[in-house]
């Protein structure tokens, strides 16, 4: 009986070993120098756009904040993944689970390679919960500039990739899937009217109403 129990336990442990937790890394260095543009659907780089419809420039000098969504399909890639598993962010960013450009998580994430490709300064592997090695998952990368801890709260330039798929690897494999199949990550500044323009518009409207009343 003891032997049977030990065998069952052993088989269970072997099954657990075979279905090792799947992981991936956040790196796109192979995309640097490929010449992919801001409309790339794969092999993408990070781009900054000063306004909607404005010029788009390859980002080589500005580190960005980064968040990752994942799911089992392109349509369900909406669950936030903690990409600060070591808890390196501090202060208001401590529980954000994102890379923050001003923190130990996001430093050099763009300026490291200086090619528009993403670098993980801490070189971690990331584990979507409950996903075994060999599983295909979909990712969405969200990038933004400024001081917000979250993509939703971004007030600077922001943008996200289209969903793209990767196949997770076993945790002890050095050959980890990276994010080089991402599309272009274009961070666009939303055009906000200058305060002086708003003020002038108000004065103009008031003057127009005054003229109409006099008539």
């Amino acid at each position, binding site marked *: 009986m003891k*032997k049977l129990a*030990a*065998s069952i*336990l*052993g*088989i269970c*442990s*072997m099954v657990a070993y075979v279905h090792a937790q799947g*992981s991936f*890394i956040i790196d796109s*260095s*192979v995309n640097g120098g490929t010449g992919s543009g801001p409309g790339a659907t794969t092999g993408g780089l990070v781009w900054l756009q000063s306004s909607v419809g404005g010029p788009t420039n390859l980002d080589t000098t500005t580190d960005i904040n980064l968040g990752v969504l994942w799911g089992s399909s392109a349509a369900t890639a909406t669950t936030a993944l903690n990409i600060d*598993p*070591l808890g*390196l962010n501090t202060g208001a960013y401590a529980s954000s689970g994102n890379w923050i450009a001003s923190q*130990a998580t996001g*430093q*050099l994430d763009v300026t*490291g*390679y*200086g090619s528009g490709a993403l*670098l*993980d*300064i*801490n*070189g*971690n*592997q990331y*584990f979507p919960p409950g996903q075994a090695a060999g599983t295909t998952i979909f990712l969405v990368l969200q990038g933004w500039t400024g001081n917000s801890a979250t993509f939703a709260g971004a007030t600077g330039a922001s943008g996200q990739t289209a969903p793209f798929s990767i196949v997770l690897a076993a*945790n*002890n494999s*050095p*050959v*980890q899937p990276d994010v080089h199949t991402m599309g272009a990550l274009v961070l666009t500044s939303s055009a906000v009217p200058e305060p002086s323009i708003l003020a002038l518009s108000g004065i103009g409207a008031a003057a127009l109403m005054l003229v109409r009343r006099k008539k």
Partner: protein
Amino acid sequence: MAVAAGLLSSQAQSNVYSANVVGYYNAPLTNNNAFTFFANQLDLDGSGTNNTVNTVIGTNLPLNSKILAWNTGSQSFQSITLLASGWTSGAAGPTVKAALQPGGGVFIQVPGANPTNVTVVGNVLQQTNKTPVIAGLQVVSYPFPISGGLTTNFNYIPNANNGASHDVGQTWNIGSQSYTTHNWLGTQWSAGDPQLPIGTCLFLKPWTANTWTNGFVVQ
């Protein structure tokens, strides 16, 4: 892979002799972003603890080369990258440094079309180790620049099998970029005793904690 060692100095005092042995070996690294399992088996200062990425590997590898070190706590790799400014550090730095001491090991990933090599220079440690090995995956190497089999030559005595539980070793096949798995069958390893050429390491996964006793002294 070549190893060369020279007797640098010896001091005689009465009947007590001590000898410092320094040497070097060349560790070939594969290319095209493929991975090589690498171990440092020479030491900077005889302490076995002060080797760094710059003293062992240096910065002559192609830009964007990576070093992956296994973190036994998180059971995952942490990596550093060679940039124009040098090796990154971040949270991975201490893990990589620990893995570059004799007895540890790392993966090295080199981009570009040209195979390269690392010339490791340092002191041959002369001591006896009782190295604790934990239950679970860890990267280990023989801490002295000698090639051989893990059990036959390097005296790793696997844990006795307990039903389906047994020690496992994983050596890295550079050509196929995959592991060869060695299971301890009670009296021998499947796929043979894991062979460790100079400058290489392996994944060891004892099913329960163990102690690896090994040593090296110049006679």
